[in-house]
């Protein structure tokens, strides 16, 4: 096993985009996970992975401030999100982008309007500038020709790409993606992976990605943490390629080598 312990605290705020410290989450008497600690470094693609029901999406929802953890603290872009309320929290939330698993595009707006919405809401740019910026974002995700389509007219892959375009509308330094390649065919999924990598490299965006798609993880992740339902927490952390090659933890080995736990 490469690393089963929590990463050391990084005090340099400039080098850390997000920091999770001793976080626990419980639903009633059920503990989803506890004592989860890790840092997301600026500019990296960080993947939270694990089997179904391990709490990946719950952890993401804690990080974006939709739920409060039962214990611990979460710092996003240098600010503790749990300590902020009202407008202060919304100001922080505007500094990162989120792509939800379903895309969550607004069905009553065209794709272009979806992407332009954050720009129109939070900047004083003239309409022509907003449209130009939104079109560049759509061009980046390969949807320039779908600008006037409604979300109901898009395929699953197009919805996810449009949702990414909306998430990067305000050029945030940090973007959270929940299951970006779930339910997509391998070609579309590979295209989405390439898009994430290129956005990280070219725009310097830090990505926190929740996924359990092994091919995507190996294609995009600089570092990963692996959650486990039985262990109720992090069972591995590090470079996914090293974890795949070197980890001796039966679950980690099974996950990265697609075998039964304890099997060959």
């Amino acid at each position, binding site marked *: 096993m490469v690393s089963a312990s929590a990463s050391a605290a990084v005090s340099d705020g400039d080098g850390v985009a997000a920091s999770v410290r001793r976080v626990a989450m419980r639903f009633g008497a059920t503990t989803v996970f506890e004592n989860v600690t890790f840092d997301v470094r600026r500019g990296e693609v960080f993947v939270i992975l694990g089997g179904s029901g391990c709490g990946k999406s719950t952890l993401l929802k804690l990080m974006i401030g939709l739920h409060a953890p039962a214990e611990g603290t979460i710092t996003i872009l240098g600010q503790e999100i749990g300590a902020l309320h009202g407008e202060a929290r919304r100001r922080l939330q505007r500094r990162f982008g989120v792509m939800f698993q379903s895309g969550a595009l607004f*069905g*009553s707006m065209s794709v272009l309007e979806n992407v332009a919405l954050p*720009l129109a809401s*939070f*900047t*004083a*740019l*003239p309409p*022509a*500038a907003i449209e*130009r*910026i939104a*079109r*560049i*974002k*759509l*061009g*980046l995700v390969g949807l*320039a*020709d779908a*600008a*006037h389509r*409604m*979300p*109901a007219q898009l395929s699953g892959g197009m919805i996810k790409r449009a949702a990414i375009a909306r998430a*990067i509308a*305000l*050029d945030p330094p940090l973007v959270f993606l929940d299951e970006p390649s779930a339910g997509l065919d391998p070609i579309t999924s590979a295209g989405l992976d390439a898009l994430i990598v*290129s956005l990280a490299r*070219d*725009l*310097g965006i830090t990505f926190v990605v929740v996924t359990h798609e092994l091919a995507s993880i190996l294609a995009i992740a600089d570092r990963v943490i692996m959650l486990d339902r039985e262990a109720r927490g992090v069972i591995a952390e590090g470079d996914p390629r090293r974890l795949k090659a070197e980890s001796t933890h039966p679950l980690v080995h099974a996950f990265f080598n697609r075998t039964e736990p304890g099997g060959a």
Partner: protein
Amino acid sequence: MAASPTADAALTRRDGAIVLSGRLDARSLATLWEEAVAAVTPGATLTIDLSGCGYCDLSGTALLLAMEERAGTPARLVGADPRTVRLVERAREAGAVRPPPAPGPAPSLPVALGEAVVRRLRDLGMRIAFLGQTAAATALTAMRPRSLRLADTLHQAEEVGSRALPLVCMIGFLFGLILAFQSSIPLRQFGADIFVANLVAISVFRELGPLLSAVILAARSGSAFAAEIGTMKVNEEIDALTTMGLDPFRFLVLPRLLAAVVMMPVLIVAMNLAAIAGMSSVMLSLGFPWAAISSQVVTWTGPSDVFGGLAKGLVFGAAVAGIGCARGMATGVGPRAVGEAATAAVVGGIVAIIVLDGIFAVLFYLMGW
């Protein structure tokens, strides 16, 4: 020039170049955008000096592209850091795909009219098909009664009938009370307040009981049928039924239709009794004895009034449930589809009730009822 990543965006000119300095992002460009684009001379060589730019993201590059577009030639970037140059290249690639033209203007009046007629005809065809499929499902179920989903039908009957009873009774009581109060004022001028009992009983048994019960059915159950079946349609549950070899009409429509038709007379009787109770409370408060009130009601109303109203109710129930289910089955795609189906079910149901009531009025007149 020292490049500050936090300084506000600013525009100056130097040696024929446009100098953009400070932070070029979506928030800081708001005041600068139009000025920067207007500073470009169309057709002239464009040189943009970015040596004082401390930060430039995709929104900043969008401004550079807008300036390029006005100039008509690619800009010469001076002093840009390699990351900004890379970003501009990426933005150029992203913007190079010419977007399709925006949707054209609204169609002309004849075209719009034609499209509306086609839509109406399609809608009519869909309703006829729905009627046919429902009739076929009913006939098949009548031949094999055990194929009826009895538990689901009883559940629907509970939803449509039992759960609606408190509302029906309350509205019936208040309606009887209001009608009695309102009519007692003019009738008293002629010393005819005893006829308030006749007026309320006849109008409620023949007209208002079935009508109000059907409106309540449309609002409560017609919309619920459309929303339930519509959500199932959106979730592909109808497709799942079809591919499992189950007829959605027998599985979903028939139990709801049957429940509504069976429970409508129950609701109408409850509405009638509640209205009579409401009217009686007013008559008693006006000093009329119970014997006089009941005598007026029994003497002046006959079985044709009560059963005519119940017969109308059966048809109203079938119409409301049928329209609710039809709207649910015709639910489109998108987040508003289910809401639109529910609204269409209520509006369609109420319009159908009024139209059918008019037809019944003429029929009953011709039959001398």
